[in-house]
């Protein structure tokens, strides 16, 4: 942990935050497709793709220093943000199954990170 600077951790957290907003806009934009496939070119989908691709910029800046086994699992915190945005923007319920599954997935990715050292 000591080898990973705080700046790297913050950059990777920022990347996960941007990526989770990307997912929200993809979901919003995807709803337009129900009016026909030609609606694939809409602002919300475009913004979602930009955020998705854009999240790789702070990620790459962050992983240049520090340990991947610490930083890589932090990206998966994006799943946690997405859980909150889904509740906030789409009124999706936060259920025990979702929380349990998320806890298992996060624990699993941390284990994979430790195993990759």
């Amino acid at each position, binding site marked *: 942990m000591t080898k990973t600077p705080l700046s790297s951790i913050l950059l990777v957290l920022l990347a996960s935050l941007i990526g989770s907003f990307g997912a929200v806009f993809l979901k919003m934009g995807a709803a337009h*497709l129900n009016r026909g496939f030609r609606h694939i070119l809409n602002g919300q989908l475009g913004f979602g793709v930009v955020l998705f691709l854009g999240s790789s910029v702070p990620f790459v800046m962050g992983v240049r220093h520090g340990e991947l086994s610490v930083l890589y699992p932090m990206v998966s915190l994006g799943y946690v943000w997405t859980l909150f945005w889904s509740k906030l923007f789409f009124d999706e319920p936060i259920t025990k199954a979702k929380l349990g599954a998320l806890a298992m*997935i996060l624990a699993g990715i941390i284990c994979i990170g430790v195993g990759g050292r």
Partner: protein
Amino acid sequence: MASSVTAIPQQAARRPNKSVYMVLGCTVFAAAAQVLMKFGANHAMPHMNPAEPSTWMPFAMALLGNYQLLLGYGVQSGNALLLILALRDGELSMLYPIIALTYVWVNLLSMYFFNEHMNIWKALGIALVIGGVALLGRASSRA
């Protein structure tokens, strides 16, 4: 006979919804793209200086000749399209964490293609991620 007729719709209702399978497909695409890009990144590329137009052409040609990298980006685009189609229906909070399964495929493919080794932590991690995704799949069938 009557009981078997009523059993069929119940069975269908218990299956995870279609979006879950589409996101599962996304994770396979994403893992394949990552492996292809890793192969593509190992290609030797000519030096490119943006200020020197004479170096643009050889770089562009080498880029076009790097079929693994191009294929990687192609697969990644297909992955994005499939994800968008999957997100049309279903809950984002249910579908998005399934993407974590990409970690599992990348680890398994890396053992095969890049001679990386399995260890107890990786195995435990893979089991936990698969368990979590299975839990989401089961929950989606009841949603």
